[in-house]
């Protein structure tokens, strides 16, 4: 009960932050540009087909082009959601310790872990709403402007929520240990490392370089956000697109297994429990 009360407050508070509105504004601008871009792609294609006398492009079918467009859209959405998650949760605990708002809350009849759980759920709700809106936007634009509907959208959405949840868990844990500022620096470095690590792994695969692959795997053990993103991007592409485009910075032809998803769940749960244990002992 108290957990949901804290969750509600966290959600409401997030909506009051200027940062969130900046992200929402950027997101709206992005969707507008994205719709415009998809329209151009579609127009070009029709014009191209007419010039070829109605014979469709066999080398690069339209579905592959549209799918690549969806992929770009989701990549951006994933990135924006990640940034928003980190910014929103970076001071979840540290900020409240610094400002002193916890002084009147901890003595109330509630356990400290409920504060962590409540905040976690509040941010999770914010992430889920944001991603549902943005993924919905990308898919609707693709469907009605691009006349292309990507497969497995719901599964893709859930995986994208998992990506941001991984970052949320990391940020919350950091927030129970470090100051807001230090936590921001550390989490962004880890996030950057995860993205780069994913790239290094792919390049390593292409060059058959074991060391690079190992570095990639190590980073995805430390921060599994990028491997879940790869899985998300894989499931929302038709197999023809995956095979034609092959490995690229935005997706992969060799997706992580279901084990990666299970690992991500265990990872999040472990970090949340660790946050609760650390916060329990923390002097305010």
């Amino acid at each position, binding site marked *: *009960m*108290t957990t949901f*009360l804290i969750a509600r*407050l966290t959600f409401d*508070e997030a909506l*009051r932050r200027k940062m969130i509105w900046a992200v929402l504004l950027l997101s709206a601008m992005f969707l507008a540009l994205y719709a415009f871009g998809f329209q151009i792609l579609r127009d070009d294609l029709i014009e191209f087909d007419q010039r070829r006398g109605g014979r469709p492009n066999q080398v690069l079918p339209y579905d592959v082009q549209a799918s690549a467009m969806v992929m770009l859209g989701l990549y951006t959405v994933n990135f924006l959601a990640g940034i928003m998650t980190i910014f929103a949760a970076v001071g979840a605990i540290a900020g409240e310790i610094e*400002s*002193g*708002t*916890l*002084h*009147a*809350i*901890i*003595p*109330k*009849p*509630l*356990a400290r872990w409920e504060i962590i759980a409540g905040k976690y759920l509040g941010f999770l709700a914010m992430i889920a709403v944001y991603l549902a809106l943005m993924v919905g936007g990308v898919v609707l634009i693709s469907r009605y402007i691009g006349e292309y509907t990507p497969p497995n959208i719901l599964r893709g959405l859930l995986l994208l929520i998992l990506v941001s949840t991984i970052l949320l868990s990391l940020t919350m844990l950091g927030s129970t240990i470090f100051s807001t500022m230090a936590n921001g620096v550390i989490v962004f470095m880890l996030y950057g490392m995860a993205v780069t690590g994913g790239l290094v792994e792919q390049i390593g695969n292409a060059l058959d370089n074991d060391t690079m692959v190992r570095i990639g795997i190590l980073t995805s053990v430390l921060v599994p956000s990028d491997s879940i993103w790869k899985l998300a991007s894989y499931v929302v592409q038709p197999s023809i697109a995956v095979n034609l485009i092959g490995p690229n910075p935005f997706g992969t032809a060799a997706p992580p297994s279901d084990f990666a998803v299970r690992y991500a769940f265990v990872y999040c749960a472990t970090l949340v429990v660790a946050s609760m244990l650390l916060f329990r*002992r923390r*002097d*305010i």
Partner: protein
Amino acid sequence: MVVERETRREDRTIESLVTVVPAESSPAVETIGLRKVYGGKVAVRDLSLTIAQGEVFGLLGPNGAGKTTTVKMLMGLVRPSAGRAMLLGRPLGDREAKRRIGFLPELFRFHDWLTGEELLDFHGKLYGMSAAERRRRIPEALDLVGLAHRASEPVRSYSKGMQQRAGLAQALLNDPDLIFLDEPTSALDPLGRLEVRSIIQTLRDAGKTVVLNSHLLSEVEMVCDRVAIIHQGQLAALGPIRELIGEDLAVELVVDGERAVAVEVVGRHGTVATVEPVTADRFNIRVAVQDDDAIALMIDDLVRSGVRVYSATPVHATLEQRFFDIVAGDAWERGE
């Protein structure tokens, strides 16, 4: 007239807000060897203290003495390094006990984007109060601290003093039996201080236990039944205020006449402490006496001996003096 009406309104509010505590045998606060060490530095050193239910208890001490750390340990904000404590007969962190405790932190910061009303509603829900209880008590609490007219404005727009009042409303919202007030008047003007004192008196009349943490000695002296003076993390003195101060009575006389005669006569009725000239033939004598009667007899004697008495002012020892004796005396011994 206006003042009178205001007071009456407040009294009604207080009565409906504060319910009388049924008598209970366990102490309100009990600490046994409570200790806190911050990275090698001892903040609170084996504090053992018992506060009975219904007491208004003052925690005194210079800055950094360990008062706030003590309260923070009792409120679950800081983990004790050793020792244990019970609140209302239950161990620290007990949910049932927490429901009956109110706390105004020294650092009173809230989610200031909420309005005063929303803030209290949130804290009421944290206390586990029902919707009906909240609907009834929130306007009363806001009225009690004088914030009713600003209830629908965000706390951010409040002055520092008003935020402290909101904090007090938050601490009293659940009709607690045990209330911790950490420097409750630090941001208030003299009128606000007076109001807080009257609130504490009402709480005392209802049988509530109040632990007041303050560096304003006069404030503590006015409202507290017992005080503990904490110095360097240790209990330096503990007892009823009257006992701590002592019953010593002194009187300061301004007289005119033969100096030797005056001093001799005064000496018959008490112990002369100081004699200081005020003008050429008028001087000031400070003398310790047994009781009020000694003062009257002394003045009679002085007049009969031809000494003119211009004024006689009884001087009670104050908590402040006692406080300085303990705190400064100790600093002196350590050569500070």
